[in-house]
């Protein structure tokens, strides 16, 4: 894997990590490592989630009832915890997605007034 220059890397916007986790789990259960890799790969390596933030976030989502954790065997042939979206988690993902697009739209209106007015 090629090293990415530090100035290209983006910090996660506050409060978006939960949404990203829910999104990566939309097509099926993954373990924590896999979720981190998925976010990285799908963001074209621009977003990286620190494990120190990822795991507390996963547990927080489990506690809220949006995820469910199950033990399984990973491709490294070791026990690993797989996280899966619950029904409540799916609903939450929908809500967050709406909120996110509204936010993007609102910020867009301010930052690019000309293009948005069209």
């Amino acid at each position, binding site marked *: 894997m090629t090293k990415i220059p530090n100035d290209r890397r983006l910090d996660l916007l506050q409060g978006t990590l939960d949404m990203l986790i829910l999104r990566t789990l939309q097509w099926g259960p993954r373990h924590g490592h896999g979720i981190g890799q998925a976010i990285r790969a799908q963001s074209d390596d621009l977003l990286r989630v620190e*494990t120190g933030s990822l795991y507390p976030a996963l547990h927080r989502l489990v506690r809220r009832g949006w995820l469910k954790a199950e033990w399984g065997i*990973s491709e490294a042939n070791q026990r690993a915890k797989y996280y899966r979206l619950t029904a409540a988690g799916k609903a939450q993902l929908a809500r967050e997605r709406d909120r996110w697009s509204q936010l993007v739209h609102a910020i867009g209106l301010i930052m690019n007034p000309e293009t948005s007015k069209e």
Partner: protein
Amino acid sequence: MKPDLNELDEEIRGHMALSIKERVERGEDPEAARLAALKEFGNVLLTRDSIRRVWRHRLLDQAEALARDLRFALRSLLRAKGLTISVVVTLALGIGANAAIFSVVRSVLLSPLANRDADRLIYIRQTAQGIGTENLTFSMPEIADLKSRVTTIAAFGDFSTVDFTFIGFGRDPRLVKAGVVNGSFFEVMGLRPALGRLLNAADDGPGAAGVAVLTHRFWTTTLQSDPTVIGKTIRLGPSAATVVGVLEPSVPYPEETQIIANVVTSPHHLGATMVTDRRHRMTELFGRLAPGATLEAARAEFQSVHASIMREHPEAYSARAQVQLRVTTLRDQLASPARTILLLLLAAAAVVFVIACSNVANLILARSVRREAELALRAALGAGRGALRRTLLAESLVLCAAGAMLGLILAKPLMTVVARYAARFSVRALEATVDAGVLWLGIGLAVVAAVLLAYVPRLPSSDRPGGLGLSGGSVRMTPGTSRRLRIFATIQIACSFVLLAGAGMLVATLTALQTANTGYDMRQVLAIDVPPSASGVGGAATLNFFQEATRRIGELPGVQGVAAGMIVPWRDPSAGFKSQYAFEGYQPADGEENPTCRFRPVSPGFFAVLGVPILAGRDFTDGDRSGGELVAVVSQSVAQRLFANGDAVNRHLWRTSRGRGDSRRIVGVVADVDDENIVQRPSMAVYQPIQQMGLASRLFVRAAGDPYALGPSVTRVIREISADQAVERPTTLEDVRAQVLTPERLNAFVFSAFGGIALLIAVVGVAGVLAFSVSTRTREFGIRLALGATPSQLLTRVLKEGVVIVTAGITAGALFGYVLARVASTYLGTARLPGALPAFGAAAVLIGAAVIASLIPASRASRVNVLRALRSE
């Protein structure tokens, strides 16, 4: 749900393995891959910790923060020693007083009795409100009727008291109070022996052997818990009894006795009068509810049975007496006399607690004003309102916990005092202990105080204009804080006023009682109990004994006069010494009965010895003996109410129950004296010579000097005449009255003490508020002085502030007290409003104290240095 440590470790290991595998697959060296994965993961412990925090309850975080705050509070309070000490001591007084009184209240009103199934143990009482008799007691025929007709009671126990001259265990003859009971008494009461056995059915009736049980108190105190007393024979007056057991500790009711014996030990109980006379009432009655019966059912049945008994024997129940039957559980009966006084005490303690809390609130408020800069700084650094409250709560918790601890230490001695006091009203008070329940009360009060105190100070907030500045150093009081300080000070004054006025009322009552004219010469007269002797009961032997004793005591140096009688004023129960009399030349109006008069057997010289003036006719003489003409002396009330011009001498009177054959000639009229009430009321009394009654049991000795100095020689003379004679309780009439007034004196004392504590706290409170107000207004005073105000004007100004607070407090207190007395009177029936004098007295004391308390801060205000004050900010 919540993962444990192993699970978290395993999850992290799983992550690590995947990370390494990925790198190895990319072609990295396994060892390098491992290190890189570790590096990428970052701090494993920290991550694990933050995951765990996700799962932890929020309260736990709060608790941790509180612990931090507590440590901080402790440190900062140790720096403010003066404040800490005054807060802790004030709270300790409030909490200690409440805990002490609560423990007594609990033991008297709430705690269970030693008696088995005390809820089913009931007490039955006959009252005769019409003739002012709260406890008429029962006669044996009445008890027999109730026993045979009432079915809701499984068994009855009866109990009457007799004074015996007791000889045994190698001790001096002494007068003991003994209970005489039937065989089922102890079974009904549900009591067990501490030693030996109690009395049972086999001990009943005239054919049984004399047996006696010692009460626990008598056995432990007088006999030093000597176990060998069982089986010994003792003499009780004329008869003998074997001691068979010791009763377990229990509440002595209706009377504290030393021994409890069976019927056969008391000749009186076997006599015809006792057994057959329906009006010979001297027995108390207890019962145990039959299985399945309720108190209500028993009450209803008793009422109907009693009504039919009264219908069948109209002669024994005069309409005027309004005889009624009352059925309660023994437990309620024991608690009722103490209830009013204990609830009053509890209220007083609660008021003291309110005063203590508002005083502490003031101190804390003043402190928080000084801390506003610190709080503002904390708020600026991101502390939320919750966090600031927590800081304040931590501090007040530390203070209140310390106060509660000291209070509970104080509670024990305080409780001993209160218990001894309340024991006058209910013996159960002596069982009071300070234990876990009281501990909880103390903790509860402390928590209440802590939370209240934490919410007293205002928090810095951004939405309030002119809020708290960050500029440290200077202290400036905002109007809101000043108002709160004043409100708390006013509350203290109001509560103190209520307590002081109440105490003043009690003191006034006591003084009135103590100075009331009784008609007796009280200081020089020694009253002595000389109960019927062991060698002979009543009749000629007694009369000879008293005649001889009177003569020989009269010859002692320092004795001015000796007389015999039956009743020591106020001390002896005189309920039985009343009779209905008919008078020659007096016809009761239609619908009225002949008057009921007290009858009093007295010896010649009685009136002179007790200082009762003879208004007409003559005193009794030695010539008025049993063979001669029957004579009587009447009180002034009798003469004036029944005879025209009070002309009673030489008229005749007779007891309506005996008829005209028993008629006596009135030979004299004496001034009214009231030997039942401390505050004299008109009394209808008929005196009869003991020589014609054959009854006497009290001696009255008039001394030239100190009456008590005569005690030993009088006892010696009596023992010379009769070696077995008990001689008890030599007391001057003045001291008898003082003893009777003990409850009043104690009431006055206890409430004065409460009032004093309250006054002290309130004065400190007012002084504190003013001192604080002055210290924050140095600049204002400086400006005033600079503008030409004189120091004395400033002094008056501050004094005025103090007086305004006190006046507002007194007004509020008067209103509050009035409402309180109104409410109390609907529940207690006995509450009275204090007269004008105690109220004005309390007000004067408070104003005086407040002026003195304001003087110190006021003089400080008047001495403000203008230049320094103006430069200070």
